[in-house]
């Protein structure tokens, strides 16, 4: 039997995480489009902003996916 409240809870969590990531991605795209010179700024360890932000977007996707996977409520007989 599927628990609708658990489904709603997971959906809400997913949308929040999605919005968070989408904003981070949007900022990256807008900076590249309207201030591409910032991409050359050396941030850390010899990496410029463009490369650092790109790696951060990939890393953040994985971290948020893990958070989602751990925080989701079982909807039915699923094991968490």
């Amino acid at each position, binding site marked *: 039997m599927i628990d609708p409240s658990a489904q709603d809870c997971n959906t809400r969590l997913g949308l929040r995480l999605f919005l968070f990531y989408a904003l981070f991605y949007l900022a990256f795209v807008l900076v590249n*489009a309207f201030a*591409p010179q910032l991409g050359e700024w050396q941030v850390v360890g010899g990496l410029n902003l463009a*490369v650092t932000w790109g790696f951060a977007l990939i890393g953040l996707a994985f971290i948020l996916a893990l958070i989602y996977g751990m925080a*989701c409520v079982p909807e039915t007989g699923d094991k968490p």
Partner: protein
Amino acid sequence: MIYNASMMAVGIFLVFVGFTLALSFYLGGKAKSSAGYFTAHGQIPWFVNGIAFAGDYLSAASFLGICGMIAFYGYDGFLYSIGYLAGWIVALFVIAEPMKRLGKFTFADALNSKFQSRGIQLAAGISTLAVSVFYLIPQMVGAGVLVRPLLGFPHWAGVVMVGAVVILIVVTAGMVSTTWVQFLKGSLLVAFSAVLTVMILQRGLEVQPGGRDGHVFSAIELTQGLATDPQSLTPQSLTPQAIEKQLGELGFDVLPQPSAWSDKGYWRVASSDGRQLLLRQTPSPDGSQWLRECQTVELLADGTELDNGQIQGTTLDDGTKAQLYPTGFLSKLPQGAERTGPLGPLSFFRTLNESEVILWGSEKLTSEAGQVVTIYYPKPTPGSHVLRPGEHPIFSGIRQPGVWPKLNFLSLMLALFCGTASLPHILIRYYTVKDASAARKSTIVGIAAIGFFYVLTLYMGLGAMTSGSLDVTNSNMAAPLLARSMNEWLFAMISAIAFTTVLGTVSGLILASAGAVSHDILKNVVGLEMSDHQQVRVAKLASVAVGMLAIVLGILFEKMNVNYLVGWAFSVAASANLPALVMLLFWPQTTKQGIIAAVIVGMASSLGWILLSQDTFSQVYAVARPEWLASVIPFSQPGIVTIPLSFLTLVLVSLATQDRK
């Protein structure tokens, strides 16, 4: 370039393909029903499905296209990696679990779960076919690319070969075998890409005068007419007489050439050893002016190819064969070093940032005989420029003033973000696991594997850029040629894995298309009464037809960067499928008419936009685009217009048809 087959490479390749086919035949025997054929009975373990996601997704575009684009232009190719990976966030957080709950076999099932409408089945079925075919083109082009250096076959032979093998796989097998094959290939591709990256870092960076074949590209610093300070040199201060005088002093005879070439800074000369060279006046980043050796390709009316003025393949005086020389090298390292030795993952970027790379541009000019000559010329480029966006023609608009030139870039990044969660062959993989939780877990595994691979693409692309092994005419060859620059064994492994990955991706796409034809259109729309076995048989027939279409298209689109083609597939998918899917899930007022209209408008507008874009006219039709189209379709990537248009259509039509709900 001329590609010679390597016996070891052929052997490893045949073992891979043979194993893939054997696995397909073995597992294919277990998929007799339609549920088994299309969705593996929903019994694939989530971890296996997650890696199979990577196998499906890391296709020719990711491996060949992104690495090639980075190798030729730098960071811009990595923007695709970022966009492709970001798209998985939409898939995981918005689409994955509802898709699993709503559907049965296909994407159309999910869209139609609430309405039971033939119109939705038809629109979604056609959209699935359109997206799959668009996505198939780059895969087939990639297959041709891989087979050339591996087996020495021409491009068309590679495309026909992969088409034939895939048709065989899909007809004899189904989702179970496709999934397991993708699992193995996804794992191997990521693992061997990691090995290749470690080898790139171990090799470090080195200043070279040319590629790995030992050819030294002539580079003459212009000093005539100067006092002592090369920094004060400007193109205006270099009169033709001064340049000719310096060339004469260096032992070169200046040869006649079309005046249009001279105006563009070219000099045709004969060296003292009798070689004829085409030089181009090029500034270096430090302001000094140089004449640098170019390469030319000329296709004669009888189909003969002249490489650097010689018939391709003829034996030259020095015993070598006439062909283009490999490129891809550094002209300067920090502090005047000649080589770095092994580098770390961060010092690799730091060193490259302070180096100078020789990239290559191209232009087409007309020879004395009226033939079109493609000239490839070296462009000394600061390392810092290859690590920032805006070098590739697609993205060059971001360095221009105003909003308008930037729309192409914004449009592409939007399509990449929205496209992943709309690809039919990715969506159907949510039906191969048992429940929503397994769908979620497999997506997380997929994101981990795919994300790790995309980080590696930047190293592999930049490694190829400095490998001395690039084929200046074809960016798609960069990754296999990089592997070949390491050793033949790695080249054989990487090529075989990439080739079988193409096989798997194409299999998945053809399966999605077959499902659209047999399940969505023939069974649910036309109302054809079919038993389970008959449905599978019809799907297999559809697979053959789609496979043959893919072969033809793969031959026609040979010269286009596979990654760029995939960008278009993402735009069509994101415009046609995502708005309908998202609104169905989150907007209760959505009607079936709204869904049908959104799918049709999104698909037609994005396809129309692409087919009428400047890029298609110049790179596919090879004719000039009518002037008036420039005002209608001012940039090539449709997503920023067609995705909102599809959403808007759905809202308006749904609001107008509320009473018929």
